């Protein structure tokens, strides 16, 4: 909001000002790619999600969007911008503020042959609906011995935003990835966002799609392949964002960017990090994690959510339970959000979420730099 005001002032005073997009929590510059290669398009995560939904609406008449403010308002975070105007009331459905009802209605529609994309304004509000997500969506195919599939996507922003305090900032990655019957995806880049959302819509199972509000405005290059309307990423496969030899960092969502920042700094200190972007929390790509650990011998997990029973706990356990354990030269270290409800004060908020410096310090401790 402040940015817009400053831009207006700048324009009014006749000065030309360029603002670099800054992460509102860490203050670091969100990765921008300067200079476009041939055929490479720069796209915001928000637009990648929008494009994915637009393409899937075109691809299959059974797909529809449902949620609060998704239609006329263009979406609370503008992810569904323009879709109602293009596809109309039938395909893009506004609802009252009634999360449990919406989720259940969407699941019922999925049971009846449609393919809903159910938006939660944030996953905090999805707690109102969690019975429908777990007891109806996740479990029905199993309980019915395969009679009743539930092809639904639950999507929305997950985790901390900026200054929105405790009830609007929880990270649900751990809760949802705990549950069999669900698939759980956590995109980082625009390519992730597009390819994984399309895959989620086409998957015959209930998929919880955990976006991140701070990442919505982040820009990433999109290859010609990624721009294709048939571009789909496989569910259950992690991506090695940065190859390295000395330390494996296992992470997902916005923390991938923070880990990459830390990796750059660690490179300067002679540590080559392999940053794994999980992309998929359930199914978890254990193979990629274990192969990397066998190569580097040191591992760290990074997540924004709380430490107890977090995703890092699962990463640690599956390394211990595998042959990769014998390759470790040190224990797994978890870098996580602070074990507190999210505070409001800006300085405390920054202390509550992993920063690049936390990752660097933990790496230094682990590797005895």
């Amino acid at each position: 909001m402040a940015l817009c005001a400053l831009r207006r002032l700048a324009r009014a005073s006749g000065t030309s000002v360029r603002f670099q997009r800054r992460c509102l929590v860490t203050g670091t510059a969100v990765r921008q790619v300067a200079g476009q290669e041939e055929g490479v398009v720069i796209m915001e995560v928000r637009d990648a999600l929008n494009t994915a939904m637009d393409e899937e609406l075109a691809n299959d008449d059974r797909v529809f969007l449902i949620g609060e403010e998704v239609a006329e308002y263009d979406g609370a975070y503008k992810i569904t911008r323009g879709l109602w105007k293009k596809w109309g009331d039938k395909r893009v459905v506004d609802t009252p503020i009634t999360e449990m009802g919406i989720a259940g209605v969407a699941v019922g529609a999925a049971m009846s042959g449609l393919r809903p994309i159910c938006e939660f304004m944030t996953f905090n509000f999805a707690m109102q609906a969690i019975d429908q997500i777990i007891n109806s969506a996740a479990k029905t195919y199993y309980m019915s011995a395969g009679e009743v599939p539930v092809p639904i996507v639950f999507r929305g922003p997950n985790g901390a935003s900026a200054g929105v305090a405790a009830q609007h900032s929880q990270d649900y990655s751990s809760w949802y990835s705990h549950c069999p019957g669900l698939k759980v995806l956590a995109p980082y880049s625009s390519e992730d966002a597009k390819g994984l959302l399309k895959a989620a819509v086409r998957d015959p199972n209930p998929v919880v799609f955990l976006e991140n509000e701070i990442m919505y405005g982040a820009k990433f290059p999109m290859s010609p392949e990624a721009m294709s309307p048939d571009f789909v990423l496989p569910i259950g496969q992690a991506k090695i964002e940065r190859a390295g030899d000395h330390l494996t960092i296992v992470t997902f969502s916005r923390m991938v960017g923070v880990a990459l920042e830390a990796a750059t700094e660690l490179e300067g200190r002679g540590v080559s990090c392999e940053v794994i972007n999980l992309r998929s929390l359930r199914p978890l790509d254990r193979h990629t994690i274990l192969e990397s650990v066998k190569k580097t011998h040191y591992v760290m997990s990074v997540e924004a959510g709380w430490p107890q029973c977090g995703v890092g706990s699962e990463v640690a356990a599956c390394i211990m339970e595998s042959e990769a354990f014998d390759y470790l030269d040190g224990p797994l270290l978890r870098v996580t959000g602070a074990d507190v409800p999210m505070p409001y004060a800006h300085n405390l908020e920054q202390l509550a979420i992993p920063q690049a410096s936390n990752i660097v310090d933990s790496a230094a401790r682990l590797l005895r730099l």
Partner: protein
Amino acid sequence: MKTTTYKVAEQLDKATLVDFYRQMALLRVFEERAAEQYMLGKIRGFLHLYIGQEAVAVGAIHALGRDDYVTTHYRDHGHALARGLSVNAVMAELFGKATGCSKGMGGSMHLFDASLNFAGGYAIVAGHLPLSTGMGFAFNYLNDNRLVATFFGDGALNEGEAHEVLNMSALWNLPVVFICENNLYGMGIPLSQSMSNTQLHKMAESYGIASAQVDGMDVLAVREAAETAVQHVRSGNGPYFLEARTYRFRGHSMADPVLYRSKDEEAEYRKLDPIAQYGEWLLSSKMATQKKLDAISAEVEKQVEESIAFAEESPFPSPEDLYRNVYAQLP
């Protein structure tokens, strides 16, 4: 039976009218024998018996078309059988056998049969109401003139999600027949102690939903009321709410010692037994003889007996089935 003339009795043929008796008798015997099997340890977990409420499932489901959807709560054996699931498949499911309608994966509360458009069986009170509303949403979306009939108890109307979907179904004009089986108790709490408004169909009216109350112990009254509901919904007038006042002769479940109501009260309601009532009506209107009714009773006894043998002899699911159907595969 309170009313002596039923419009629906003139519209339906004798065979159908007699078959209502057979269906209710089947439901009754099934539940009584299931209770015995539960005490023998053959059926485990929770068992919620439909004894006393037979007229609601039989009367209402008969008013539906083959393509319409039926959903219900955990007191679902009656609805499953009335919808046409095989007695063997339901008993086997209760026994947890691989030959059960949900292959032993669901049990008493999770009976499914997609081919009969029967989706459970739902264990969370009121949890299936949004699902049913979603089915109605899909039928509107697909423009296919189907409707969904969803059965639930008086207790469900205290859950927030019930109100969320009464609102949405009216707002969006969805083809849902809400059938509230008001058996006057939400588990151990009598209606007057949990509802500020005990005229449940009036609650629906406050959402602008057409509604009615019917004597749920009278199968023909239920059949008639359901017909009205179905016509209303199928004509595109949006949802309908039917409150069927009924009574369960047993406890909430097999685990319920029923200390919250008197034996005298139960005895009073036993006099309204839907099957006995209907039998008398069939006899007095010369639709059937006592001999015929006795033959029917014997037939359903035999059917249920055979289903128990079937369930006994059927295998449990194999260990490999533990991990089957967690996820659907792309074709």
